[in-house]
């Protein structure tokens, strides 16, 4: 079995589990993830509550499933945002060059100078900590690296002769960009988008952990981890399960991303 085939399975399996759980969690969870039941608080994993309960007696499995939905939809929308903004700005800057390129890329480089986490934090203080604010902040924080990659491949593509050939045929610049340049720069973009999905998920969890994510009582893996901290000595399952969710889903995404990269980049295929 080639490496990328193995990675598809190794990465795809946990990823499919989490996506499935997130999807099911939208419609059905064993218990209501918000319902407080103080009589059964801090119960260890058992027959009734498979993964135990938290300090308010809420079912941990139900909350993890609900949180998966939140995390996945935030991350997906964010990546989609970065993809759309990155492709638009990158293709325009790379194709037009000159002043347009210089303005777009100066702004872009200025944003790239900040770590995404810091940038997201700063933007969150403007947009406010709700779901849309988080998507906007994370999306803007992750767009610059997408712009760089897109512009780079557009710059090299536009020197190829088939772009001249398109002009010779009488095609407009807009048509040439959409029909010839865009499809040809999708390879590296898809690879970047996959790995970006992982780091957005991690950043979102970190923001929640810091209390800047989706506000409680709505569960996210990050804020569940944060609220588990005071109880970690008596109820360690509260910390372990959300932590495992974050690590395993990231591992899955990264392996899957590697597999995709290997497919798109033939130079890596032999490894």
């Amino acid at each position, binding site marked *: 079995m080639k490496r990328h085939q193995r990675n598809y399975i190794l990465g795809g399996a946990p990823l499919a589990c989490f996506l499935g759980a997130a999807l099911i969690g939208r419609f059905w969870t064993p218990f209501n993830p918000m319902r407080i039941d103080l009589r059964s608080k801090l119960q260890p994993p058992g027959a009734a509550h498979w993964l135990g309960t938290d300090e308010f007696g809420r079912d941990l499995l139900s909350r993890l499933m609900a949180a998966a939905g939140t995390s996945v939809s935030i991350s997906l929308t964010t990546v989609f945002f970065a993809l759309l903004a990155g492709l638009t700005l990158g293709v325009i800057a790379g194709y037009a060059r000159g002043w347009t390129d210089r303005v777009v890329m100066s702004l872009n480089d200025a944003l790239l100078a900040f770590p995404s986490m810091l940038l997201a934090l700063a933007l969150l203080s403007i947009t406010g900590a709700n779901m849309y604010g988080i998507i906007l902040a994370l999306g803007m924080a992750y767009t610059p690296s997408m712009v760089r990659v897109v512009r780079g491949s557009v710059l090299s593509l536009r020197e190829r002769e088939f772009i*001249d*050939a398109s002009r*010779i*045929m*009488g095609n407009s610049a807009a048509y040439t960009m959409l029909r010839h340049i865009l*499809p040809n720069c999708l390879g590296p973009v898809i690879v970047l988008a996959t790995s970006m999905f992982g780091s957005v998920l991690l950043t979102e969890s970190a923001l929640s952990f810091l209390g800047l994510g989706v506000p409680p009582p709505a569960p996210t893996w990050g804020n569940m981890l944060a609220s588990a901290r005071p109880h970690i000595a008596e109820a360690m399952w509260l910390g372990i399960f959300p932590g495992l969710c974050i690590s395993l889903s990231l591992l899955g995404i990264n392996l899957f991303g590697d597999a995709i990269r290997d497919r798109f980049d033939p130079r890596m295929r032999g490894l």
Partner: protein
Amino acid sequence: MNQPLVEVDRLSLSVRGLSDHQIVRDVSFRVDAGEIVGIVGESGSGKTMVARSLMNLQPPAISISGGDVRFEGRSVPAMTGKQVRALRGARLGMVFQEPMTSLNPSMTIGRQLEEPLKLHARLDAPRRRERILDILRRVDIRDPEAAFRAFPHQFSGGMRQRIMLASAMLLKPSLLIADEPTTALDALVQREVLELMLEMVRDEKTALLMISHDLPMVARYCDRIIVMRQGEVVEQGPVAEIISRPRHDYTRELLQSMPMRGPLRIIDQAASAVVEVKGLEVEYRTKAGLLAPKTIKKALHGIDLCIRSGEIVALVGASGSGKTTLGRCIAGLVPASSGGIFFAGKVVKPGSPAWHHYRLNCQMIFQDPFGSLDPRMKIREIVVEALRHDRQAGRVEKAERVRAVLEEVGLDGRYLDRYPHELSGGQRQRVAIARAVVGRPQFVIADEAVSALDVTVRTKVLQLLADLQRRHGFSCLFISHDLSVVEQLADRVVVMRDGVIVEEGKRDAIFVAPQHEYTRALLSAIPTLTRTDTGVSLSWRFAQADGALAEALQ
């Protein structure tokens, strides 16, 4: 008979792990001391692999699966790594094809040339320096002292190839291997470098193994020729014998595919001009830097050119002569800084109302068949895109026209749904030609359209281009550095140099009685070919470069 310098004995090379996948089969030949031998073959014939196995330098994925290579009687594959290294550089020198990449860009010329001397010769630093300066002078590098301290990017391709030659000859090896040494250079520089190389190996009594796809070039300089095809030697022997009496069909095909002067066509000199340019100038501006002032470099200095209806005009010149810039400017890819382009008597400018009409009537075929087709589109989509602006034709009609034009260029329906990477170089160029002519343009620009193709494929593509032109009657501007191709196709020849037209005339006039020194120099690089009953005979124009000619080259 004394011992041969190199003896290749039933050599077979195969892909490691796949012993039935042989790249080279049962190749045997020998090179004697001081002999000049050429290996001729098309891409994929295995000629480079054979040459590399002489130094045990074949790529790691390829191994010797049979036979032996002996250098001065000792088996090269059986040598230890240390023994082979002692051989490389000292006894065996090599000049590679690509002068842009075969020198280390981050080392000065002096340090690079010093490396083999440090490894193989016991000389102290001042002596080494003396030796390097000597050889740099020998390869005609102006100001060797400065070259010693310079970096490779400061030299042109021809100069770098001279430096490569210097580095290979530095230790006076007994065999020099030159793998397509001048393919990346234009015709004039090619001849200078080759003649220098020949002179040096003759002086040092070094044997030369020259690998090339260019049969006339090999025939001109070598004593013996080895013809390879698909990993096998099809024929070998003395040059004169092979080209005058080839025994193998493939050799005959190679000789047949050497371009010959085509029939003279009568072009009505009173016919209206399809495309005309007057006083065309193109400037490249560099931006003003902190210390450097803004500079303007003129690539074209007031070009006047007229292409009549149904005429094939060849535009020739060495690299840097501005011929490609002129072609791209006429096609509207490079803006003109002054002067005008006239189409059917009316001036056309990008953005003017007549431009779109001109745009559709002026199509272009590019040099690189790998770069000119969108890799993500099927052949069908690539060709039909050229009809996008044809409002009269419906989808069914367009599909029919695409099928018909592909048929015309020799690609049947099976190719419609393939992607460019599934096609060979020649087939791709056919697709590019189909795309250019499908809209029935009145004017086609072919920019080095056959330069990237193998000799036998090149002939077929040229033939196709000539056929299409006769059938559809479009006018053609054929840009090429290769005069032998031009001789076959063109009605009229325009010679350019440094952005100026130096000579212009009917093909036969230019080829028989060139007026300008520069044209004579260009012509000296190609053979005149006469077919004999059994083969061909080659002769060379202006073979003795006289003083005036040499000056014209400077």
